[in-house]
């Protein structure tokens, strides 16, 4: 590992470095006054950004491994490539920006922070995200999601933009919001009723929703160089949980 820049930027060639060693090094770096870390040739190292508790920027070139930013609390991670499964697992604060697609269970159990994915995501994006007071995890997905997006969602905001769909083409994801009992999904484009979980209600966006959406789409467009107006100038659906305790009486008799 080499330190080639001044005090504030650290560059690391991660070739052949195991994940434990890399994350230990990141912890060490984060405890200094470094502002930015650039990781090159990343190839499958897991948990990058875990256990970091301050806003440091980590740029990743290559393909980071599973559970990128797991339990992360503050850093901003920019992935110049695709993310694998479990990106943002239980993250508490910070930002992950993926210039590509992300795998399964994006943002699972997240408690805060924001994740922006330029392209599509795999299964179960946003599964069991939760929120408490000002802590509100947010996922903005540029493309489509595969099945079970927002499954068991207990809080937070999931925005699905469907930018890879042709005009008039519907989202393909099924079981959207199955078991959802908190939070909200904003979906650009259309889905059939059967694609939604039975716990999901459909509504028009009100002014408060539009305000949230404008802010998030603005940030998304800024990250990836898209025109925000063009994205916003389209029909959106609001998906919300019809019940806060859908299974409250399941075992009660």
């Amino acid at each position: 590992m080499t330190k080639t820049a001044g005090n504030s930027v650290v560059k690391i060639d991660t070739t052949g470095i195991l994940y434990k060693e890399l994350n230990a090094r990141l912890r060490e770096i984060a405890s200094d006054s470094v502002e930015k870390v650039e990781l090159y040739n990343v190839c499958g190292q897991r948990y990058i950004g875990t256990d970091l508790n301050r806003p440091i920027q980590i740029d990743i070139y290559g393909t980071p491994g599973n559970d990128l930013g797991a339990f992360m609390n503050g850093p901003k991670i920019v992935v110049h490539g695709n993310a694998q499964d479990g990106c943002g697992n239980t993250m508490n604060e910070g930002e992950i920006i993926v210039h590509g697609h992300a795998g399964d269970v994006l943002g699972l159990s997240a408690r805060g922070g924001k994740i922006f994915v330029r392209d599509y995501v795999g299964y179960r994006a946003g599964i069991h995200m939760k929120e408490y007071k000002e802590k509100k995890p947010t996922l903005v997905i540029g493309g489509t999601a595969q099945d079970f997006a927002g499954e068991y969602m207990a809080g937070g905001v999931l925005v699905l933009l469907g930018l890879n769909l042709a005009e008039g083409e519907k989202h393909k994801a099924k079981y959207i919001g199955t078991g959802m009992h908190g939070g909200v999904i904003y979906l650009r484009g259309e889905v059939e009723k059967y694609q939604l979980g039975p716990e999901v209600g459909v509504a028009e966006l009100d002014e408060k929703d539009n305000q949230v959406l404008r802010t998030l789409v603005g940030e998304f467009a800024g990250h990836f160089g898209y025109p925000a107006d063009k994205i916003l100038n389209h029909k959106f659906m609001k998906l919300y949980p019809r019940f806060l305790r859908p299974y409250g009486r399941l075992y009660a008799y």
Partner: protein
Amino acid sequence: MEDLQKINNPYGADKVIDSCSIFGMMDTSGRRFSGEDITKAIANMHFRGNGLGGGLAVYGIYPDYADHYAFHIMYLSPQGQQQTEAFLKDKFYMVKAEEVPMRPIPAIVNPPAVWRYFLDVKQDRRGAESADDYVVERVMDINTKLKDSFVFSSGKNMGVFKGVGYPEEISEYFRLEEYEGYLWTAHGRFPTNTPGWWGGAHPFSILDWTVVHNGEISSYGINRRYLEQFGYQCTMQTDTEVVAYAIDLLIRRHNLPIEIAAEVLAAPFWSDIERMPPKEQKLARTLRQVYPGLLLNGPFTIIIAHNGEMIGLTDRIRLRPLTVGVNGNMIYLSSEEAAIRLISPELDAAWIPSGGEPIIGRLGVQLKPEPSVVSGARL
């Protein structure tokens, strides 16, 4: 085999649950390449396994004996070997017999003797049966009736190498950098229910079919009993074994195309079938009604291979990962994209297919991704 059962599975556990790494790569032009790249790729997913099973399959490996059945057999005792070799000589013409070359390494402990045989079926022994059926039955005979002997590879111009260890260690042990093939698959194992043993490592194989699997086939009991009706005996205490036999039954014996076989294993849900157009619906209903015993339930990602083809398939709700990479004639299937990028940093496309959708690599056919998964923003 009966002794092995006692040693390796003292509690008679029905199956082993896996959570593994899998990788497959093929050159659709038929160009043969060594085992070096796939060993690097599977080693990059080292932490998905736990060292209790690793293995690789390779196609196009024995061009000089391409028309002979190549048996790879593990022996736990010299008596087992004597008995099995006598059996082989009785049932087959033995064209060549040799110990599989290996290099001793510290990581591989207590290996069985591993031999390979190039065999021709004795016509007078075979009778009216097809040569393939005859071979399947003899493999079952050896695995269930002969002591301390275990056939783990029995196809033509292909071979399986497997054992207890990490896959990169198995590759080093069997000197796989010295072999060349146009299609390789690999597996790193994480067994959690019964001790890992040499026969329980992946790939599982019958004739030239091989399967590597990440997941857990919860329908194992139903699948096994269904397959027993067709003469397949499950002896390896690992759920993946049923997939190899199911594929042999569906494709070789029932002559179904691979796309249809995939629909049997990962059948669409009834609710999805109801929304299909009438013709498709009829087919889907028929398949579910004819082959209910071959529906694979539970989480799985599998890579199936045979001469000329490699197929990636996940369960219908994709409870295990699969990424596809394409670079010119090369097709890659992997549990993780990083493993593909390690050996092929530049790809024409890398994508994550939907659950239950088979990805089929064929000799002579370049794989093209579906536009929906690779298209960027349409603004």
